[in-house]
């Protein structure tokens, strides 16, 4: 089972829920946690894994072999991302614009382009509990593209029976979130009952509808804001699977690196029950 925890608006409580969900399910099945917020990962603050492996995440960028290059400009023409320019019989490469698609290499009539690895971050693996594998990606500061790292991170997913993969998505509703969601069975949306939360949640609902991924909502900080969130969820027919009340004691403990289930152990059963609801929704979809 592959579950992504996403939100739209940042700071709604994705990691709070994702980490405690992972801890609660560790007694039922093998859990693998993927921190896909490669620009600002924070799952490790709560699950405290021991990292044992680190591999560079690379994107393959073109290198022009000048002795073969005739500066015909074909590579510049085919590049969708303007990562190449032709200037005075030389081809310039702009590595930070390159998406690693390979079109330039493929189209060069002189075979003058070689792909070389450009490291943009790292992928790390560790163990959080005896049977919980923890994976995260880390985008090097100043690199603009998180998506290739998330893609490489997800290649470790190996769907297996009796394994639950939990993907903590980045905030927002752009490419990096879409990449995190690709191929998952269910999106657990963590939101808050405020206008900002609702605005960004609607973007997420649009994306999930396009991707045909079933979803359900956790209303975090329940009790603040207004009713427009719940009205909208009724309208879109998205189930509310859990409400976590606004609670200062919880906020203080989270800030100190303690998880939701550390502070309120009763959430262990509640989250296991939530997982059952998810399996029913996902099972119902495939009928």
């Amino acid at each position: 089972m592959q579950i992504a925890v996403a939100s739209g608006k940042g700071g709604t409580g994705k990691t709070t829920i994702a980490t405690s969900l992972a801890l609660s399910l560790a007694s039922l099945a093998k859990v693998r946690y993927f921190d896909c917020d490669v620009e600002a990962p924070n799952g490790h603050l709560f699950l405290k894994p021991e990292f044992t492996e680190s591999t560079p995440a690379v994107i393959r960028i073109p290198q022009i072999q000048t002795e073969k290059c005739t500066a015909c400009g074909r590579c510049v023409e085919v590049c969708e991302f303007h990562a190449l320019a032709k200037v005075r019989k030389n081809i310039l490469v702009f590595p930070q614009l390159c998406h690693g698609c390979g079109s330039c290499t493929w189209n060069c009539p002189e075979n003058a382009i070689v792909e070389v690895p450009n490291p943009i971050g790292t992928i790390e693996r560790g163990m959080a509990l005896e049977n919980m594998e923890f994976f995260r990606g880390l985008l090097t500061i100043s690199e603009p593209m998180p998506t290739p790292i998330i893609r490489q991170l997800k290649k470790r997913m190996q769907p297996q029976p009796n394994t639950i993969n939990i993907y903590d998505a980045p905030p927002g509703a752009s490419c990096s979130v879409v990449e995190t969601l690709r191929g998952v069975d269910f999106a657990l949306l963590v939101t808050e009952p405020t206008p900002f939360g609702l605005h960004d949640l609607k973007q997420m609902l649009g994306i999930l509808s396009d991707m045909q991924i079933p979803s359900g909502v956790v209303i975090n900080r329940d009790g603040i804001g207004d009713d427009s969130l719940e009205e909208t969820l009724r309208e879109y027919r998205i189930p509310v699977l859990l409400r976590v009340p606004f609670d200062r004691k919880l906020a203080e403990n989270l800030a100190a690196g303690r998880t939701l289930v550390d502070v309120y152990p009763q959430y262990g059963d509640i989250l296991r029950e939530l997982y059952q609801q998810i399996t029913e929704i996902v099972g119902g979809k495939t009928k």
Partner: protein
Amino acid sequence: MKLIISAQGSSLESQVDRRFGRCMWLILFDTETDQWEAFQNPGTSQSGGAGVAAAQFVVDNKADVVCSGDFGPNASRAFQAANVEMRHFAENITTVQEAIDQFKQDMLLK
């Protein structure tokens, strides 16, 4: 000498555009013939690499000088490699014609 100026409109009376990569129009002016032509900037609606797209256009049109409010790192790199001189509008310049006049008097900022 060929000069390209970033502009918000397609005539010499148009306001200049202080952005280079995503400006709407690129006005090409030949100081020897006083002929000019307005082109839509290929970089305007690009989600990425706008500076490169616009710079490639300038280089392909064999401009000697390019004028704008500022140039980003990618466009700058392309122009340096191409030996195209980058010039900046002074604060008070508003129209393309003013920029051309200032250029002819060598008063555009380097």
